[in-house]
């Protein structure tokens, strides 16, 4: 059932086997897995079913003291969490992402990729894919994509899978997909507008006894459970542990001062402009968003090979092509006319553009057909289908773990009287070197293969320019409650249990010790499924 805390009696006591805080991808996945196994689950979500800007969402406001991050805009505090603005782009982390890399301090997971493989298979289903993914080679063969022979010493094709559209959403959204099951479930009690207010612990602070949740209109409830799981995202998970330690004068992995450290984020942005004297028709059939008749949709790009990362001592990095309209194309002319009309003007050179459009009407009709058939945004489709002579190489860049890049508690308090978050996000020079090397490899290969010539962005080679002025956030906040073998190296153990706490767990990207270059959602789900399996086997 789904209830609204605001409508419950103040002081309501709720008992459950497991309390899950946060109804995003991790929280909903965990609640369903555990609930289906017969356990009594209380799923507490701070927001409601819709975005509430001046109410719940404002609780995410905080202070930036480093490179600014979107504390408020980058996360969504309502049912479904940040999947509500998710693009549906999925890829697993690679083997090398889990390994200890001696050139990257603090790298290495206590689990390896092979251990996650079966959970990735299940995660694909949870993320809405109708059938298991084929291998990359088989997927490309199915899509009839023949890629050019890139230099396998440095580069390899990399595929991102897009979740299929839903009836009521362009990509898979947890609230839309699983809301009905949660509503109908008899042993999952979902509580909306239930914001974390306090933890109470036993005498030695090693066991959470209860959690108090409050609504913004002053209704509180106390949840007692044998197990508590924080699923509130890469920033809030750390904040809640810091608040728990403050409220209880210790515990919550506070002993080693690692909670909140190692804040990372994938950076995304333009690394080079690829130009060609001819139309890039062939390349657009290779490095692009490709679709099969049965709904399979993948984006094909390039990534650094593990060997290149190792030999050149680099982070992980990948790139995709975002095509620019050929000014001589009817599609570009139509787009420019359309944008001008939306802005309430005819725009410059209207006559010329209409002439180009009329001459190239076939391309325009084909582009319209593609957009209508796919149901995706015009922006994304324009990049995929537009006749082009140039493209932007967009990077997705791993960030190195840095203990100085961190989340702490600010002095300001939120509407519930809890200290707000303070972020000190830092990005190092290894990220720039990785981006430069990757882009150089791509540029050299594109020239060798006759694909096009690359002009690299100045931030890659001019150390005076701040990288983050040219790159933008992905809202993938990672690493603040990192998984490790011991409390001296991290906050949670290999089972996502908080060190020093008997019954407190963390799920989400905050437990990733390193970020890889792939979007984190699939790994978040895989780890949530693994944690659910672990908890199901434990006596509650």
């Amino acid at each position: 059932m789904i209830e609204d805390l605001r409508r419950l009696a103040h002081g309501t006591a709720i008992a459950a086997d497991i309390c899950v805080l946060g109804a995003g991808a991790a929280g909903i996945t965990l609640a369903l897995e555990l609930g289906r196994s017969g356990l009594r689950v209380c799923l507490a979500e701070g927001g409601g079913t819709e975005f509430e800007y001046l109410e719940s969402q404002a609780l995410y406001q905080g202070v930036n003291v480093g490179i600014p991050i979107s504390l408020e805009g980058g996360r969504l505090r309502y049912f479904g969490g940040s999947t509500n603005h998710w693009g549906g782009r999925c890829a697993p982390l690679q083997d090398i992402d889990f390994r200890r890399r001696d050139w990257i301090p603090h790298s290495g997971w206590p689990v390896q990729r092979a251990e996650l493989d079966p959970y990735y298979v299940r995660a694909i289903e949870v993320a809405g894919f109708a059938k298991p993914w084929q291998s990359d080679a088989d997927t490309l063969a199915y899509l009839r994509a023949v890629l050019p022979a890139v230099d396998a010493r440095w580069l390899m094709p990399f595929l991102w899978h897009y979740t299929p559209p839903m009836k009521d959403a362009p990509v898979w959204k947890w609230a839309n997909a699983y809301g009905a099951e949660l509503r109908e479930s008899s042993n999952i009690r979902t509580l909306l507008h239930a914001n974390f207010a306090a933890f109470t612990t036993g005498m030695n602070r090693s066991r959470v006894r209860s959690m108090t949740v409050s609504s913004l209109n002053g209704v509180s409830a106390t949840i007692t459970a044998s197990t508590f799981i924080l699923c509130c995202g890469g920033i809030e998970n750390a904040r809640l542990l810091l608040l728990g330690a403050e409220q209880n004068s210790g515990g919550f992995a506070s002993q080693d001062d690692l909670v909140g450290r190692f804040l990372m984020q994938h950076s995304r942005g333009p690394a080079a402009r690829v130009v060609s004297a001819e139309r890039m028709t062939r390349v657009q059939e290779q490095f692009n968003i490709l679709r099969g008749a049965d709904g399979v949709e993948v984006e094909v790009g390039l990534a650094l090979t593990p060997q290149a990362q190792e030999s050149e001592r680099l982070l992980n990095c990948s790139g995709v092509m975002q095509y620019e309209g050929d000014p001589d194309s009817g599609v570009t002319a139509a787009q420019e006319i359309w944008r001008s009309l939306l802005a309430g003007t005819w725009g410059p050179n209207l006559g010329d553009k209409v002439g180009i459009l009329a001459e190239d009407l076939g391309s325009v009709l084909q582009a319209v057909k593609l957009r209508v058939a796919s149901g995706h945004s015009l922006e994304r489709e324009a990049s995929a289908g537009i006749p082009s002579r140039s493209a932007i190489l967009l990077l997705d860049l791993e960030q190195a773990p840095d203990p100085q890049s961190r989340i702490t508690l600010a002095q300001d308090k939120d509407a519930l009287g809890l200290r707000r978050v303070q972020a000190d996000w830092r990005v190092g020079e290894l990220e720039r070197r990785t981006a430069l090397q990757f882009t150089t490899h791509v540029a050299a290969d594109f020239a060798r293969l006759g694909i096009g010539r690359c002009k690299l962005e100045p931030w890659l080679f001019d150390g005076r320019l701040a990288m983050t002025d040219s790159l933008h956030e992905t809202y993938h906040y990672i690493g603040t409650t990192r998984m490790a073998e011991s409390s001296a190296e991290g906050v949670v153990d290999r089972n996502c249990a908080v060190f020093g706490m008997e019954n407190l767990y963390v799920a989400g990207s905050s437990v990733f010790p390193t970020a890889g270059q792939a979007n984190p959602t699939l790994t978040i789900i895989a780890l949530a499924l693994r944690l659910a399996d672990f908890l199901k086997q434990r006596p509650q």
Partner: protein
Amino acid sequence: MNCNPQSEAHAAAGIGRRDCLRGVIGAVLAGLSLHFDRLLPWQQSDLEHWLRSFGAHAIGDGALLRRLGALYLAGHPEECDRARLTHLLSGAHAALRGSNVFESVARDWREHEVELLEGWLLARTEARVCALLHLTQGAAA
């Protein structure tokens, strides 16, 4: 011929007797250079053709490629000499031929012998052809 594109701005400053002498010597040298150029197995049009074949025309027009050549020479002043560049581009071969240059460019891309000039990534051989074009154009002018 000018290895430093920034120094052109100073050329218009006052002309004295010493400058006149330099001018005469320069003209004689330029004349000799042009004479020997005719003996070389390449012409400016060859350089332009080669660059087009490399796909460098996607980068920009001849003026841009010459500017990139000048930038290359600014970073490699020891190569600021047509004979030296011709020798480097010829490699192990007796003469500078298009086929040799194409092989060299392909090898540069494979081995990442590259130059980053104004953000453009060029094969080193390609950058040297641009440099030669810059020097040749300078001499012709």
